[in-house]
């Protein structure tokens, strides 16, 4: 069983919803990321999503775009991100790490080389934003051969046919994009999310995470009532941006925010 599946089993047994923070690797500098990952785990993160910087992040809102630009300006590339995961694994062999990004850096490295290197570094899965199942066959096969999960997105525009199809090829969990929009959107409608999740659960057996637009303890708690995982990105990355000049303060600040989310999520069930 993969580390991701194992983690969801544990949470299910405990009756808890996963807290999944997203940070862009190498933002605001490469030295920040590994200590930040440990601090997030200590504050209650169940799975970590690590953004791989790409020059053209077309699904991201301004907050994560700027994080990407900061990381790229520091020269952070896919190979560096894999090295960060390897360093993280020296002290944490349990928390699943999912890479989130765009296809082109992987395409250049080569699917097989990426899968091998990611597996060796201790990565558990990947969510490639611009790879729908129609284009994902070769990638999913290559990742699976190394025991890696390919997490797929579902959206408010996904038809029942698509939901079924994606449920059939995804592994680890599926990521429901709660709004029509980019990361960091402001207009999360929890009733609407609950309705979509019911539809998804009737066709997909995997755990369902919800992300995009979860900005505070209150929205996190509301989403936690219906989701298996609450994914928070821009709200964390915005806090990192505010401290870009004093990066030594980032881990404790993000940890304090996650602790707040953790309490709210655990209180919701």
């Amino acid at each position, binding site marked *: 069983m993969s580390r991701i599946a194992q983690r969801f089993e544990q949470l299910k047994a405990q009756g808890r919803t996963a807290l999944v923070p997203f940070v862009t690797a190498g933002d605001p500098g490469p030295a920040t990321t590994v200590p930040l990952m440990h601090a997030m785990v200590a504050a209650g993160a169940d799975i970590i999503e690590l953004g791989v910087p*790409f*020059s*053209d*992040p*077309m*699904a*991201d*809102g*301004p907050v994560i*775009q700027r994080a990407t*630009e900061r990381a*790229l300006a520091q020269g952070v*590339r*896919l*190979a560096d991100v894999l090295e960060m995961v390897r360093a993280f694994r020296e002290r944490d062999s349990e928390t699943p790490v999912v890479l989130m990004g*765009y*296809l*082109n*850096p*992987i*395409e*250049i*490295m*080569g*699917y097989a080389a990426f899968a091998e290197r990611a597996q060796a570094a201790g990565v558990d899965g990947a969510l490639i*934003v*611009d*790879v*729908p199942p*129609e*284009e994902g066959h*070769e990638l999913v096969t290559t990742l699976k051969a190394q025991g890696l999960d390919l997490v*797929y*997105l*579902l*959206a*408010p*525009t*996904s*038809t029942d046919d*698509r939901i079924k199809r*994606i449920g059939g090829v995804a592994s680890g969990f599926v990521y429901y*994009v709660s709004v*029509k*929009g*980019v990361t960091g*959107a402001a207009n999360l409608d929890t009733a609407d999310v609950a309705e979509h999740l019911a539809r998804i659960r009737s066709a997909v057996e995997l755990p369902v995470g919800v992300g995009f637009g979860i900005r505070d303890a209150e929205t996190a708690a509301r989403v936690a009532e219906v989701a298996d995982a609450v994914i928070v990105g821009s709200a964390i990355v915005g806090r990192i941006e505010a401290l870009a000049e004093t990066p030594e303060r980032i881990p404790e600040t993000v940890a304090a925010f996650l602790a707040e989310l953790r309490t709210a999520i655990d209180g919701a069930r």
Partner: protein
Amino acid sequence: MAINADTSQAERLDPGRAAAYDLPDATGHFGPYGGLFVPETLMHPLEELRLAYERCKADPEFQAEMDADLRDYVGRPSPLYHAERWSRELGGAQIYLKREDLNHTGAHKVNNTIGQALLAKRMGKTRIIAETGAGQHGVASATVAARLGLECVVYMGEVDVARQEANVYRMRLLGAKVVPVTSGSRTLKDALNEAMRDWVTNIDDTFYIIGTVAGPHPYPMMVRDFQTVIGREARAQMLERTGRLPDALVACVGGGSNAIGLFHPFIADTDVAIYGVEAGGEGVETGHHAAPLCAGRPGVLHGNRTYLMEDDNGQIIETHSISAGLDYPGVGPEHAWLKDSGRARYVSITDDEALAAFHHLTRTEGIIPALESSHALAYAHKLAPTLRPDQSVLVNLSGRGDKDMHTVARHDGLVL
């Protein structure tokens, strides 16, 4: 990734079997290129777009409406002009110019925006968005939006907004909102990212008019179909005028919509040589250029797999061309396929060569070409003398040079 692995399709492009050319396939691929590399939110809307387009394509009423607009509003058919003085001077092949510069709004771009705007109307969309580099596609989009009474938002890199002031003003006069894009390199590729972000956010009422033969399926096919009016007309005009097909076609390639529009109706005519001309900038060897087919490699950007300008880590790199309309790190996937299959050849022309051709056509034929089109003219200037006077070269004069006055003057040390 399986570049060059699809031999069955390579065989289909074999000269003897060229009549079978029928790409993209049902999933939007041209061999290994093209496809649908977009976030899940866009997948169903793109499927709806594909179905709506298939319906319109088969609908005689839609085609009649489109033909009438192209005739009465755009001014089609555009003339075929024999550049006799220039041909005589070079002493080689006869050069013919397909005069897309005479279209309403001054370039080939309007052929596509007319089609997509009619489709938007059929689909009940009330708002259109577009990306633009030089501003030509933005103007063509704002124009059709004004005519159909649709709200129009145009995304344009901050750098381009500054260097194409006149076109920004034209768009605003036409009632469009021009949004300067400040992310990334602040040029065309970033404007495309921003338009995608708008589309994913406003998917219910918004139609995204992509300006070139790139992006996710069905855009490369749909934009091509709207632009093939260029090649269909030119083919008939050449046959009528000279009694035979041209020996060579030449067109500039940024995203490649004017080029594919000219090339596509000739793909099965294997005796016709096809040349696509990329922007060589300061020279391909300097790295400062926008010639992904000549000097890039395959990758995935903006919804499709194609040749890209990228570094060893898969990051898209900044491009350079004197012509804003060619200043793009990717290229339409069908060009990638035509290159690999050998049916078309892709070459590059530097900024200086394009400028020289700009001045030369202006003084020799009394036609001021766009800097984009000047790249094609510069290559024709090299190609024609290698052919006999009883042969012919057909060049797509894709746009007029009015928009480039400031750029050319600045190069000549003048400020207008």
